[in-house]
């Protein structure tokens, strides 16, 4: 269905007419949160395709997909809490916890059941985060940092004898298998992305998430239960973080408490690169996908050029600054002029 446009003539000159014009539409596109990451991904992809003959090889692209999957899932999870004006620093701990939990149960039951337990546990932890932040109104940074600490500790205790390696071979199957030419793990990640996108763009909850992040007081006064929306956001974040932990665990074939911190940092980088604001209620799944893919491609490019992989932190850090400048500066210049 096409978007209906009310053709009532605008009485207000200026802003409204400006938006209707071609230039206005172009500006809206350029100012969209996901624009920078999209442009950068295209430019980078085109560059690598030309400069590195190995980039477009099927097996290399499969590699990019595998490497980006965990990042994609975790990033869309973080997106939800950032959109409601919160933050979740416990996702690192959740990844460690989920991986250890899944590996722990994998030999006692089916792998799918073990994965489900790990995800459900992280959702429950997300609910605790949500209750503490949304109902008790504790500071989200402090609460989630503390919860993350606890989870990391639990994961470490459970792996006191070293990482847990399930004997069941299908444990790694998720990460290694292919469906046609596409890695299964990447399909799983894309499924998560689609679910997140549908929730944010079609579900009532999605509307409320944006409303709470845009102006919490106004949303509350408009009759929205802001506490419930926040709890839901943290539960969803927990679900995706738990699933990301399962995927990461499947990739290395074991439950390892040292997983988490690196994944968390990269996911925050992907989210900010994708144009998601911190406490502004701005951002969407598309931007996050571009952000995550950009980081994946950067990592791959660094591999192809055989540089030290640690370079990706420096590159992504610089890119985030550039991305923010892209979003903020045009508005400031515009403001100066008027």
């Amino acid at each position: 269905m096409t978007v209906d446009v009310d053709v009532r003539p605008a009485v207000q000159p200026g802003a409204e007419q400006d938006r209707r014009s071609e230039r206005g539409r172009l500006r809206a596109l350029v100012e969209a949160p996901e624009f920078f990451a999209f442009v950068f991904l295209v430019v980078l992809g085109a560059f690598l395709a030309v400069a590195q003959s190995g980039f477009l090889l099927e097996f290399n692209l499969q590699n990019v997909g595998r490497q980006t999957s965990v990042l994609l899932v975790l990033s869309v999870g973080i997106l939800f809490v950032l959109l409601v004006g919160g933050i979740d620093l416990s996702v690192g701990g959740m990844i460690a916890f989920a991986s250890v939990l899944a590996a722990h149960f994998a030999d006692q039951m089916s792998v799918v059941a073990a994965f489900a337990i790990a995800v459900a546990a992280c959702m429950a932890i997300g609910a605790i985060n949500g209750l503490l932040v949304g109902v008790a109104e504790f500071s989200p940074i402090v609460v989630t940092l503390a919860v993350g600490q606890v989870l990391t500790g639990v994961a470490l205790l459970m792996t006191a004898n070293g990482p847990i390696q399930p004997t069941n071979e299908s444990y790694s199957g998720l990460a290694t298998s292919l469906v046609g030419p596409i890695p299964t793990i990447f399909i799983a990640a894309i499924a998560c992305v689609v679910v997140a996108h549908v929730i944010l763009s079609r579900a009532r909850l999605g509307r409320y998430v944006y409303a709470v992040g845009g102006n919490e007081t106004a949303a509350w006064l408009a009759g929205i239960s802001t506490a419930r929306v926040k709890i839901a956001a943290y539960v969803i974040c927990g679900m995706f973080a738990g699933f990301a932990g399962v995927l990461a665990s499947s990739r290395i074939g074991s439950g390892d408490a040292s997983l988490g911190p690196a994944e968390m940092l990269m996911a925050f980088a992907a989210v900010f690169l994708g144009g998601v604001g911190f406490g502004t209620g701005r951002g969407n799944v598309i931007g996050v996908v571009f952000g995550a893919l950009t980081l994946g491609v950067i990592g791959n490019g660094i591999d192809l050029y055989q540089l030290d992989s640690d370079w990706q932190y420096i590159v992504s850090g610089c890119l985030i600054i550039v991305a923010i400048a892209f979003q903020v500066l045009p508005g400031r210049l515009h403001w100066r002029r008027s």
Partner: protein
Amino acid sequence: MTAAVAVNGVTKAFNGVAALIDVDFAIQPGEARGLVGENGAGKSTLINVISGALQPDAGAIEVDGQSVNLRQPNDAMLRGIGTVHQQNWLIPGFTAAQNVELGHERTRTFVKVLRRGNSPSTQEALSFVGMADRAGATVEGLSLADRQLVAIARALFHGTRLLIFDEPTAALTPIEIGYLFDVIDRLRSAGTAILYVTHRLEELPRVAEQITVMRAGRVVGQRPSSIAERELVGLMAGEEVVAQEDVAVTDRRRRTASSRALKPLLVGQDLTDDEDAFRSIDLTVHAGEVLALVGLPDSGAVELTQALAGARRLERGRILLDGQPVNTRTPQSAVRGGISYLAGDRKLKGVIPNSTVAATVTLSALHRVSRAGFVRRRRDDALARQLIEECGVKAASMTLPITALSGGNQQKALFARTLATQPRVIVCEDPTAGVDPGGREALYELLGEACAKGDAVLFSSSDLREVATLSDRALVLWRGRLVAELARDELSVARLMSGQFNQLPELKAMGSD
């Protein structure tokens, strides 16, 4: 004698709306002057011009006979003009002394620069207000009154030519007020001029000798503070306003009144909030009625409005709709019970930036257009279009961001959001603040239409003309209590104003029980 501060022919407009028109004002050293006027009369603008927070469009400011150009608050401070604001901007974790010298901390090198004229040192400033022994106490541990004194000391630190007090007693107890007045007396005898802005007219004879009265951006008179309060209120309201009750207004009232069945719709019993803003209020809103709640900022009228909409906690009392108790613990429970709320302060409490016009109007009523938690786009769009149409929101497209619309159209969109939940009672706060006259008229029509359907509107407004125009009945609050009820044929700006100051003779008994 040279005036401490004089303002000559100052004019100031905001977006073409005049806030000050050719204002002349002068205050002598050691003089204490009261400044009164209704909301929007221009008091705050005048204070801001004198204290350098605003620059006048035309006219001149003189300090000690010297023409000055005050570009920012610091320029005024350097000339010994200090302000004690209603809420004083102190830093809670700093000590009293640190707050006093904030931004002007003494350092060895700059000590000469900082010791301007004869401005007292931090310690002197604090001992002047009797706070010398508390210099090291952090502000968060001080009482409101003590904080007020710290704020005064801070103003004194910058000089003592003119001190402006903006509603300084709003949060103080009588004993604390007495102490504040003693400090003001001491300041005056030391030669400081005092400009005292207040709604509490009974304080003026104690503080000031002369009172300057403002109305609609002009100084309309100067009277000795011994003037009768009723006379002062009359001067603030203006005689011509009383005569200005125009025909259209009466028409509208008659129309809404004819559809009024006098069936009680919303009943509040013994309403008392938990922050002592209002106490033991009983009220009834009838079906088809527009009821106004009126009062000064400290009257509790706004707080009562919020409580009825679920946006403020009640300590006791209950609210009935159609005889059934309504849960008003939160706005969402109130909405479910049939009470919908349009909050004041559009930017802070109404608009959700980044959201489209369509998403704005259907936000509160998404349950009407969704199934199993998912919004059904077609129905959502249809509802949005219908609401936009009904409320006459003028937007080139309903997919525009709400912030791209004019203030009046944003307000109409928010009103549409309020209507979308199909409420029985619409509660609003300052429904037309910052809306142009055309938009105002349209909003009045909308409120009238809602009432014609048998719903009721309850609103609070600081714009008394709006109250006189729009409402079928008005309840006047004074310091947390209901002091007057004005029926349709008794409504006028002058009477509302008198009521706000608890100066309606026949009703005075109501307030002093």
